[in-house]
């Protein structure tokens, strides 16, 4: 085995008194002492969350306020820790969005189970579920840690949608496109 002998320079007399190093160190710490604090005082100050941050999963609406989820349950099936529970429901026929046919009646995400993997976002064919910038959740009971549908929409808000595919589909059906 190759052994490399490192020649270390012997300390000079001044260095052996420790004083130059100690004084240098004192100057460094003094600079930090007088400088601003590096820390963020958390609950009052919040860090800027970068885009595409993978926080708490949320449900979003499209720019027209329609809930995008069609309760296909793909996210429920793909979710590795089985955190998502969906009760499918149907959209009443007199609704403006009747052609979408289905919407979740209940949508629960158990945040005690969620592992923030983002598979639900990845699998969603409707781009309805997103992991967004909410990163802190707390509650006093297990029940409080389950996000129900209303809270999921509240956290999710509205995201821009370039396709508006259900409107395009309705327009195509009304306009007598290929059936």
């Amino acid at each position, binding site marked *: 085995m190759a052994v490399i002998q490192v020649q270390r320079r012997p300390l000079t007399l001044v260095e052996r008194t420790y004083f130059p190093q*100690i004084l240098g160190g*004192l100057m460094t*710490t003094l600079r*930090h*002492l007088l400088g*601003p*604090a590096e*820390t963020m005082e958390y609950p009052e100050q919040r860090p800027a969350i970068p885009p595409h941050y993978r926080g708490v999963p949320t449900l979003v609406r499209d720019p027209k306020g329609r809930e995008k989820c069609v309760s296909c349950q793909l996210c429920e099936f793909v979710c590795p820790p089985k955190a998502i529970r969906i009760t499918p429901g149907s959209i009443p026929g007199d609704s403006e969005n009747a052609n979408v046919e289905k919407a979740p009646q209940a949508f629960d995400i158990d945040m005690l189970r969620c592992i923030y993997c983002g598979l639900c976002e990845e699998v969603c064919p409707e781009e309805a579920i997103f992991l967004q910038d909410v990163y802190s959740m707390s509650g006093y009971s297990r029940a409080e840690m389950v996000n129900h549908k209303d809270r999921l929409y509240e956290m999710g808000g509205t995201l821009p949608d370039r396709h508006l595919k259900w409107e395009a589909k309705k327009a195509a059906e009304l306009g007598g496109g290929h059936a």
Partner: protein
Amino acid sequence: MPDTFLGLPTIAVAVLKGLAVVVVLFPVAAACSMAERKVCAWIQGRPGPNRALPPFLAWIPGIWIVQRLGIFNLMADGGKFLFKEEPLPDHVHRFYYVLAPLVAMVPAFTTVTVVPFGAYLGEGGRLVPLVLANVDVGILAVFAVASLGIYSLILAGWASNSKYPFLGGVRASAQLISYELSMTLSVLPVFLWVNEPGSPGTLSLTRAVEFQGGAWFILTMPVSALVFAVALFAETNRQPFDMPESEADLVGGFHTEYGAFKWSLFFVAEYANMIVGSAVFTLLFLGGWNILPGVPLALLLNWLHGATGSALWLSPAAAGLISTVILLAKVFSIIFVFMWVRWTVPRFRYDQVMKLGWQKLLPLSIVNLVAYTVGIALLQH
């Protein structure tokens, strides 16, 4: 001191003075622990403890300054230490285990009685010190009683009956012996100089301060001051010499087995020792209550009198107040340096501590003593 104690019997006066020491020094020492945490935090780029605030005080405007300084954290800490459960481990030597923190407090609070913290000019311009026990052996009393403090560490280490505290206690005694010598030897030149031929011999700290009306001893005897300062760090078990505690290699050192109020007593004692040590350093080398080198207290008061035209400056009360403020300002600056060094310099290894003490400081202080002895003899003849 004048007889202003309303003609109380001697014992009552002594008890009052003793209470004054405890009532003043205990909170100041405790406040030093908060100052330590704040200095540490600022050096590390943190704000430090700044959250605690009793809700019933929140309405006071400007209370946030006190809150940000962590004063209420300090009170909460003190309250917690008083009221939390104090477990007594099964394996300790009970009597000595309980005794050790008390032994730590006694020398820490005793030394302060012989340290003058101010002075005023009595009849005929004679300097009268403000001190609880004006003994002529001043510095000797400080050294004699301060070295007793180490017994508490040894006692705590042994009584805990477990290996890390024991190692801490052994280290404490070795370190004390190593640095006590250099400390004492470094002070001797000061008193050689103070005791000029023809004056009555004295070891009084007041006399040493009076002598520094001109140049301070840190200017005339820098090596003595340096050796004394380094030995002071070692004697008060401060970083980089905190061998007895040394939490990295000895868990907590001598106080590993201690908790709650007994533990905090060790810390109050450590800070009280720091305060007294800084006061002694100030009195011996930094000119005590003289504001600048070459400006003795009497001159400062005369200037103030001349500048304002008020005779108030010449009253003993003004002199006592001003001298005390000057001294305390210097003492707290030194305590800040203690903390500043603590959060800058890493701990020495045990062998380095011993080597530094015996092979560097001791020869240095002996050479220093011999040189100054010869020099002073030549000067004064």
